[in-house]
């Protein structure tokens, strides 16, 4: 029998600022060397659970904690955040914000510095740990110059330098492009095997984590543990669906096809899946599902012709980009972190001025227009709503753009704002302060504040980042509705399924150039493009191939159409 290393006994925690406890009667035991995934929708309490482990709760975020939480046999309430950080190493979600040192070596050494480690011991330890994560050749490199995957390695090394027994990953996949996310999961797996640490991963992107083996999945909702079982057992049940966590797509497809799933079918990974057992049912489902609809194109609303741009004046960050967007399209822009997707959207909105090339809107050259002139045609919604909100009340925030124009009467403004609020589902909250809203609702406010100016095109940067499956669906259905009303939508995203599910077309940007412009499914089945742009193929396609379906692309399309219909019935 393995040693228990983390023991929650009837733990209840209430933040000082809240009425209701965030965690209720948690009982959970994690053993030495286990790899645990904790999943749950937004606001379920999974982050609070993680904070209990590293000591941020109750030492930084104050509140009342009852029950007993022992880590390595010691009651955490009697320790402090520093002794806990010797046992539990935390890799935070924000891959940029958590760096303290400027160079790789300095950041890895941070914890050693705080422990008054002598300089020569410190240098040696940093060299050893950096070798473990394969970053020993980059010790003097500036962190800002690293790729997303390398940054992940550095932040991991920064906590491993303490020789911790437990590694805690707080949403390690957020903000990473799909391929980098996959490398991160690989890295965690490899480190765990080499060092035999206990690993706890908090993440709602289940399928991506299951890319490598996980011993148990804990599902948290409403502050309680609703599931504690091996992946194979969990995937046979409807726990994930009931708790608004996206099931792995191949599992969902099997369920739609009416297959009876048992833990013996090797459900946790596609390569262990006993596909033979499901072949007939899946084929039958495929044949009887109606074909997915195709959309017809209209006329171009936005055209880029040979657009180039440079920040530094030396190398071009955007290199001769040309494409044309039709009115009423919904288009994804995908590619690696740092490939130039955000820069491109800034050029389209006039935030930056392209050095070469033309931007054409409805056959009119708008290259020379100011930000403000363009804003009436093209609206931009940034990833972080906090960067856009400048008023305290929702109504004022949405009205701001119209008020600033100065040409509308108060009556006209009221009418337009109220209409927009209704479209965005915010009308009931119109007199609320913005600070009372959730992250997703704030994002809606920023979309409303752009929509009210009636642009024909909206560009959204990561519209669903940081949102759980329920809010993802809600947001995307809302955008799909807007699109159906004739607004052209462009989205920058790392979410492959979003791209497949909601857009008819994807533009792939790699190294400042357009490397592909095709339907999402064609892009995801082109191995060269997937590899070059750090994308990730979909498990649906692989499932179709494995079960011998002859038109795997059509299978994916049918699944997506079917799945969206099912989810439209959600409350």
């Amino acid at each position, binding site marked *: 029998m393995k040693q228990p290393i983390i023991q929650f006994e009837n733990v209840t925690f209430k933040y000082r600022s809240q009425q209701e406890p965030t965690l209720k009667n948690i009982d959970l035991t994690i053993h030495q060397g286990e790899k645990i995934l904790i999943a749950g929708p937004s606001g379920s309490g999974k982050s609070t659970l993680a904070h209990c482990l590293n000591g941020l709760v109750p030492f930084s975020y104050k509140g009342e904690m009852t029950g007993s939480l022992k880590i390595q046999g010691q009651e955490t309430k009697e320790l402090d955040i520093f002794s806990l950080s*010797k046992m539990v190493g935390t890799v*935070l979600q924000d891959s940029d914000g958590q760096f303290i040192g400027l160079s790789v070596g300095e950041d890895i050494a941070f914890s050693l510095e*705080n422990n008054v480690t002598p300089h020569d011991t410190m*240098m040696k330890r940093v060299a050893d740990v950096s070798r473990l994560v394969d970053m020993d050749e980059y010790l003097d490199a500036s962190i800002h110059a690293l790729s997303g995957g390398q940054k992940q390695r550095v932040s991991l090394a920064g906590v491993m330098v303490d020789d911790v027994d437990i590694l805690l990953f707080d949403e390690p996949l957020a903000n990473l492009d799909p391929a980098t996310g996959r490398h991160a999961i690989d890295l965690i797996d490899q480190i765990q095997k080499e060092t035999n640490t206990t690993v706890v991963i908090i993440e709602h992107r289940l399928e991506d984590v299951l890319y490598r083996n996980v011993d148990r999945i804990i599902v948290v909702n409403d502050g309680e543990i609703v599931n504690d079982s091996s992946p194979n057992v969990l995937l046979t049940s409807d726990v994930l669906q009931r708790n608004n966590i996206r099931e792995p797509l191949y599992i969902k497809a099997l369920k739609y096809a009416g297959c009876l799933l048992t833990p013996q079918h090797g459900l946790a990974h596609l390569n262990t899946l006993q596909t033979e057992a499901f072949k007939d049912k899946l084929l039958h489902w495929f044949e009887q599902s109606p074909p997915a609809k195709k959309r017809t194109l209209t006329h171009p609303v936005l055209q880029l012709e040979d657009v180039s741009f440079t920040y530094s004046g030396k190398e071009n960050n955007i290199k001769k980009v040309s494409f044309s967007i039709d009115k009423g399209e919904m288009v994804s822009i995908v590619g690696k972190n740092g490939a130039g997707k955000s820069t491109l959207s800034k050029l389209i909105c006039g935030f930056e001025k392209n050095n070469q090339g033309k931007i054409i809107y409805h056959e009119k050259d708008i290259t020379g227009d100011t930000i403000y002139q363009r804003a009436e045609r093209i609206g*931009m919604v940034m990833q972080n709503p906090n960067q856009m909100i400048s008023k305290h009340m929702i109504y004022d925030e949405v009205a701001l753009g119209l008020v600033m124009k100065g040409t509308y009467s108060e009556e006209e403004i009221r009418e337009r704002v109220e209409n927009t609020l209704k479209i965005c589902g915010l009308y009931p909250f119109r007199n609320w302060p913005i600070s009372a809203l959730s992250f997703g609702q704030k994002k809606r406010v920023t979309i409303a504040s752009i929509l009210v100016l009636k642009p024909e095109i909206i560009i959204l940067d990561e519209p669903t980042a940081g949102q759980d499956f329920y809010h993802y669906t809600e947001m995307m259905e809302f955008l799909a509705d807007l699109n159906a009303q004739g607004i052209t939508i462009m989205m920058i995203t790392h979410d492959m399924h979003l791209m497949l599910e909601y857009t008819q077309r994807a533009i792939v940007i790699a190294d400042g150039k357009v490397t592909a412009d095709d339907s999402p499914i064609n892009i995801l089945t082109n191995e060269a493009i997937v590899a070059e742009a750090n994308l990730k193929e979909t498990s649906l396609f692989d499932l179709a191939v494995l079960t011998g379906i002859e038109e795997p692309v059509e299978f994916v399309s049918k699944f997506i159409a079917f799945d969206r219909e099912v989810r439209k019935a959600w409350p």
Partner: protein
Amino acid sequence: MAVEMLSYIEKESPVHRLSGGTKLIIFIMWSSAAMLTYDTRILLFLFIISMTIFIVSKVHIRDIAFVLIFILIFLLLNNIAIYLFSPQEGVRIYGTNHVLFEIAGRYNMTLEQIFYQFNITLKYFVVIPAALLFIVTTHPSEFAASLHRIGINYKIAYSVSLALRYIPDIQRDFRTIAQAQQARGIDLSKNEKLAKRIKNAGAIILPLILSSLDRIEVISNAMELRGFGKNKKRTWYSIKPFKRADYITIAVGAVILTVSLIITFHDGSRFYNPFL
């Protein structure tokens, strides 16, 4: 991209090779010497050495042009203010009165006043290169370590260096927010009247504060989780150990400081008087 002022300038020079601690100590001694003395001979001597060190550091004037112009404008204002408030200061100090021409009332131009203000200006020119060199030749990672070395609490030292380090990030945030607000008609460019521009800047402050608070929460959690603030002391990864050059530099600095103070005070007056 935003102008990055006062950031580290990577060069290979003897000044860059010195430990940050040495540079800070020299800077403090240098400024004390320049502040205490009004002896023109010493100031000229310090000025020549300052200039020599500046040339040795290989930092180009254009790298620091922005800050330099800013300081020079300030210096000009300072000189004007001195003249406006005490036009007879030179006469009072040097005890003679060589009038060049009269302006009005007590405002006239004397050789003594010109000489006095020349000394003040010279003081600036002695300190400016030392201050700028300390900032632009000390790697930001070493900055906090050098402050800590001369006895400043490491928490304060680290806060200062973190604040400096985040200036470019905040500038970037500011730019993004300003662009997004401009899209909604909140104009900060020259097309708008100044009063309106100031009012519009308010629309950028709130989002800037909110996003900076997010940033602070993340970084302070990250620091705490890695043991920052646990002990009274801490060690530094990127500290440069004191080498021979450092000891020699400090010794030479100390000698210059002592000698200049002796010369300044030996006759009981901080001023060198050419009018006697």
